[in-house]
């Protein structure tokens, strides 16, 4: 074993980014090969069932991507926790695979038929297609709910609560999908609980009563039964 085998993942990344020592890279490839290979394999399957040489090529491309421009990507890596490197390598591998297949698809379609790259455009709210009454109505409903939401979430964590609410109700993410976003910092149950409390509060506003969570407490259970 080389001395590099004793380094933590972050230390090993730094050693590879700052030195030209082949032993450091041998250890890096040995340690992270399965992570990169698995990410390449699963991402490739979104496009085709990849052959073994294809997978080897994509795995090699991922390592070379990490080394491009004087190890730019490796040097840009900022560990958020000890396991961050695995997420980082999966992201790099997924990007490499998607880029490779997109490029291959573009070549296959021919230069004249490649999809135009969508340029960011400024949308003027006054000129968007609002002729559809339902669209206008929907927008008004969303605005009304957003106003109420802003009011009921005033204070700490407002942005996070609003993000959770709209990820669920506008983007259609499930509670477990929302909880999977690291910056949300909640379990699935936590997200469900936030969503329910917000829904209750909004309901209260819509009905014109600012009542709080009305869920009956367990010690008073028998009173509410069958009433």
């Amino acid at each position, binding site marked *: 074993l080389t001395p590099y085998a004793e380094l933590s993942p972050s230390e090993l990344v730094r050693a590879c*980014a700052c030195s*030209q020592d*082949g*032993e450091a*890279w041998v250890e890096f490839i040995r340690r992270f090969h399965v992570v990169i*290979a*698995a990410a390449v*394999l*699963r*991402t490739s399957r979104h496009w085709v069932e990849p052959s073994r040489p294809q997978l080897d090529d994509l795995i090699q491309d991922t*390592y070379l991507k990490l080394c491009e*421009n004087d190890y730019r990507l490796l*040097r*840009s890596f*900022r560990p*958020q926790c000890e396991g*961050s490197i695995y*997420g*980082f390598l*999966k*992201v790099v591998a*997924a*990007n490499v695979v998607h880029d490779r297949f997109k490029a291959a698809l573009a070549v296959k379609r021919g230069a004249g038929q490649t999809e135009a790259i*969508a340029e960011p*455009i400024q*949308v003027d709210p006054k000129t968007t297609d609002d002729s559809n009454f339902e669209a206008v109505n*929907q927008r008004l409903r969303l605005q009304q709910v957003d106003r109420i939401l802003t009011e009921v979430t005033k204070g700490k964590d407002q*942005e996070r609560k609003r*993000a*959770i609410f*709209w990820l669920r*109700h*506008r*983007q259609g993410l*499930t*509670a477990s*999908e929302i909880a*999977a*976003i*690291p*910056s*949300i*910092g909640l379990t699935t*149950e936590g997200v469900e*609980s936030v*969503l*329910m409390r917000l*829904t209750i509060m909004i*309901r209260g506003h*819509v009905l014109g009563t600012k009542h709080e*969570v*009305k*869920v*009956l407490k*367990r010690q008073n*259970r028998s009173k*509410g*039964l*069958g*009433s």
Partner: protein
Amino acid sequence: LERNPNEHIGPAELARLLEESRWRTGSVDAAETHPHLAACTSCRQQFDELLALDRQLKNTISGDSPSPHGDCPGNDVWREVAGGLTRPDETLAPVEHASRCDHCGPLLREAVAEFAELNRDLTEAEQTQIASLESASADWQQRLARRITGTQHSGPDQEPKAWWQWLSVPRLAMAGASLLAVIVVGSWAVVHRYQVYRNQPAAAERLLARAYTEKRTLEPRIAGAAYAPLRVSRGPAASFTSRPAPLLKAEALIASQLESHPDDPAWLQAEAQADLLEGKYDAAVEALRRALELVPHSPAFLTDLATAYFQRAQQEDRKDDFGAAYEYLSQALKLQPDDPVALFNRAIVAEDLFLYQQALDDCDHYLRVDSSSQWAEETRNRANSVRKKLKDHESKATPLLSPAQIAAGAMPPSEIDQRIEEYLHEAVRSWLPQAFPEGHSQANADALQALFFWRS
């Protein structure tokens, strides 16, 4: 444990039932959802009401995926967000954006789903497939490592010769010459390495200055950086790949040097400047405070520490930090009164503290030191803006009382106290010369009386 069907449904369970019902199509019968809901009207009503609102909101989900807007982040950001590559406080802004944007929301959802799939444990079939790849072999991995580092290992081993076979006269002469050469080269290397080490903080400083200019995100200046217009970072956090290349290089250099020189003030300052460019203001304050403990009266450290406090004050709305920034810049200017960076920066801090007159004074002082650079142009613009603010303020404020009005007691002392700074300024600037004129001019009795009033 068996659950008592007479127990009311708790918040966590109600939330779970709502979540499950949301994804069912068609009408949902509360009684079938949970046995307690069949028996308890109160819980059923609550559930039905919440479900109705949930359904209404579900109908507002747009099926369209419009083109990106101007403030949409790049598509690569979503995988980084889903993979947790950025700090949670930096990620919240793009997540919040995606929650309201019909272009980015689906991209985030796709990235989250993709990442969930990548995080699943490997199946046995996948493990076998990966193990059978050529890239899984040690030989392939060593070849790739050599390719990456551009080094080649030594050739095939040869049979070693016995040591006495080397002892011939020409070989001994060559060995002696080689030894001498090694000593000369070694001595040069030691001296050179020392010089290189000494030059490295300056190299880091140059890289940081270039990074600042390539992407100026700080309003205050850092020493040595050429002019660039301020780029207010728009919208959510940038991708981790978008940091200027010189910043990345400087950070690698600083990290490697701080390991062996953790108490070198020059490296601490370089680290703090990199932290400032990264937006890590707490870390910058800490590093500069350590540097100042080592070199207590360094104008450069004081100026950068002020910048760290100022940025943190703006980010976290910490009023004390604004004061600290002003104080440290004043200390730096006491040591180097004409330092253009400290003057430039103090004008900014003063304006933020509503010390408009002081801001204007610093701008004027700066323009006497540097009147022609692009920094000077920015200072001129700042001075004009401050002048306008002062003018607006003066036009809105009621005029100060004249000496005669003060002497006549036209206003209670408490109201004068509220504008004490302005009266003090007026007393020094106008009343004193009127009360004690030079030459044979006649003293203004009202001014004199107002000054007596002031003393009392």
